[in-house]
């Protein structure tokens, strides 16, 4: 399992996959992609890494306990809905702000985006939790 080639490849692949996962997450609202796919992609990166280097190394690189990642993700998704409840709107009503970025055009930021980030983190955390746990029983 722990062949040199795999290790080297994974070491290169991990940052790439992470970057790609963020890209998928961010473009998801307008093109195929989104929090799920992004989260899965990020997790796949770490899964490969942990197969190559062992789960303890992967955990060390990750720094944060994947269980907490789940909690944070859920909390983020939840609070994007809660915000609107405070604004006297039904739960999960989308609220949008337009940011002007000068020459770059304008960026639309909305609560659904936060929601999607929450999804991303949860999916990531869950997948990692499962993979680490399965690996560590062996």
């Amino acid at each position, binding site marked *: 399992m722990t062949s040199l080639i795999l290790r080297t490849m994974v070491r290169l692949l991990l940052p790439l996959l992470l970057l790609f996962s963020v890209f998928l997450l961010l473009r998801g609202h307008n*093109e195929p992609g989104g929090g*799920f796919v992004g989260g899965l992609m990020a997790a796949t990166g770490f899964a490969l890494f942990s197969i190559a280097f062992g789960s303890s190394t992967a955990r060390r690189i990750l720094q944060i306990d994947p269980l907490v990642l789940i909690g944070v993700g859920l909390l983020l998704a939840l609070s994007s809905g809660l915000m609107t409840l405070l604004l006297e709107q039904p739960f999960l009503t989308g609220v949008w702000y337009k940011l002007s970025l000068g020459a770059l055009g304008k960026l639309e930021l909305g609560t659904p985006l936060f929601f999607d980030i929450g999804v991303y983190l949860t999916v990531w955390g869950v997948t990692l939790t499962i993979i680490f746990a399965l690996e560590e029983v062996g």
Partner: protein
Amino acid sequence: MIIFSVLAVFGLAFLAPPLCRLTKEKSGWWLAILPLALTVYFLSLLPGLARGQIQSISYLWSQELGLTFAFRADGLSLAFALLISGIGALVAVYAGGYFGTKVPIGRFYLWLFFFMASMLGVVFADHLILLFIFWELTSLSSFMLIGFEHDREEARAAAIQALLVTGSGGLVMLAGFVLLGQVGQTWELSTLFLRGEGVRASPLYLAIVILILIGAFTKSAQFPFHFWLPNAMQAPTPVSTYLHAATMVKAGVYLLARLSPVLGGSPIWLWAVGGIGAVTMVLGGVLALSQTDMKRLLAYSTISALGSLVMAIGIGSETALKAMVLFLLAHGLYKGTLFLVTGSVDHECGTRDVRELGGLGRLMPYTALGSTLAALSMAGVPLFFGFLAKEYLYEASYKAGALWLILAVLGALLNVWIALRVGIAPFWLAGSKEAELPKKPHEAPWSMTVGPLILGGLSLGLGAYPQILSSVLVSPALSAMAGKAVEVKLKAWHGINDILLLSLLTLGLGVVAFAIRNDLQRIAEQWTVPWGLDTLYRRSIDGLFRLASFQTRLLQHGYLRYYLITIVVAVVGITAGGLIRWGGGALPHLSLDLRFYELGIAIIIVLAGGMAILSRSRLGAVAALGVAGYGVASIYLLFGAPDLAMTQFLIESLTVILFVLAFYHLPNFAQLTPRRERLRDVIIAIVTGCLMTIFVFVASGIQIHPSISQFFVENALPLAHGRNIVNVILVDFRGLDTLGEITVLAIAGLGVFALLKLRIDQRSARAGKTTQTGRKGGDQ
């Protein structure tokens, strides 16, 4: 006030345990105060009753269910209430002496007064459902009291039997009550009385009568439900006295009397009620012939007496009802006495076997006096209350027909015999083996003689001066049953006539029968059939257990695949049933537009699935499953669902990784099922598959309504600021789904983590407080 009398006794019941701790051995006397006061109160209502004042009160309980707290105290109710509170007070005193302080007497009084309150509720309730509530509570308290000595298995079994018999009767009766309420448009008894005509004309009348009779008959131990009563003699004697002689078993009688203005007066009523009553009356006496235990003898005579009461209600003439009221009171007095006496004898001598007892008159003079008075009343000796009641019963039967009269005489004759055997012989005949009694007998304590003396005295006093009862109690009670005002005059002595001669003849024959008691007993023992109703009851309980465990082994056998087969077959069955009703209808138009690469993917999916089934290795099967998943993803891609395809590809890959990680530890496949089973499974699978195929054809071909999707397409960009409509649906239009979905994922993650990491340390769990977990499964 009436409602408070009931509530007060309930209150007393719950206060009894602490009060008993407070008053110790004197608790019987203290606790009797309330029932005594109630007796006085009920007596004070009688003059008003004679003037036609009937107390009643009603509170709304549930509008929707039609429930009211309606209470009413007319003559019939008060006749019963006096028995309940009066005898109740004496039994409370008696029990104090009977139990001493050895047993948890607080609990005894709890259930005794709980019973008293419920019984008062039964007779005062002016609402059928309210009556039913109290009725079932009497069954419950009877259960607790019969099983009071619950360390003995016989006591427990008897308690359960009594509860099951009366409980099942009660359930049947409930159905009858509900129907009666529907036919009569009300459950209020005082209103129902006015609608008797309509009820009797209803097509449901027969059903109502049968259902209600079953309830009344089980409670009042009528044939063929009589068998529980002798077994209930496992109860302590104060309980037998109170519940199973004086009051509870008369609840059925009360109900019949109460409903006779509504339901009575038809041939069915005469033959069902009168007939069963007469049969029970004779049967009870006959069954007593072979008994030697005082309590069982009395129990059978109670069955017989209850039969007489029921027969009188069935006959239903004014004389018959008059006889019923008198007999009710007389029986309560003398039977209560005799039971108490039995308890004293048992208490002092250590046995209740009439063959062993004798010559107790000198040793227990007060007990003997009470017993003698009661026995004479029971035998129907002139000037005693029992005589008066029997006179009227004879008169009523005489008017009803020769058959009734013969049966009545036969029943009375047998009761003379029992009275002599239980009430007279142990005291006044020489005991054969006095020295061998388990205990050296002496007079019972004062608390245990006061009851028999008072009740025995009343048996004589009321028989000699019945006038004091006639206008204040008997007339109102009779009026309540007849549904109109009835005036009654009672006399102790009717002069010499046919009926008196018949009474004397009965007495004489009874004495003769007593003289040859040993021969009678031998004959009766030979008659005893090997299987009685009691045996039938036991067999059906056994049968129930056998059926239950057979069914459970059949259904809950533990084989997962048979569970799955059952479920799949059931669901496919009902669904196919629905499809067959549809019958094909307009089959959708099928488009034959097909491209070769699509067909290729379809074939790959099916082949991969087949590989997954047939593969001998785990990894091969998993790989095949993954290929099928990729195939599905390709279909998504071809038909305009890139998001789906992307997710499916990723998930499929991850799943394969997970499978590999987990399968690393799992064993390889083994062929475990024989060929025939596999064939059966193939058939089930193919049928299910066909059903689903048809369903998909139909659903994709028929569209009852167009999809709502256009809304999403139109509003995704302007309102939800997104171009990827699927993603917009996920995070915005149907964001709640997604929230739920990531929650599922989170739980799954937590679950995998906990499942793989948590290992309950068996020893520490066992030693600690947790012994909860599945022992049987967990230990091996």
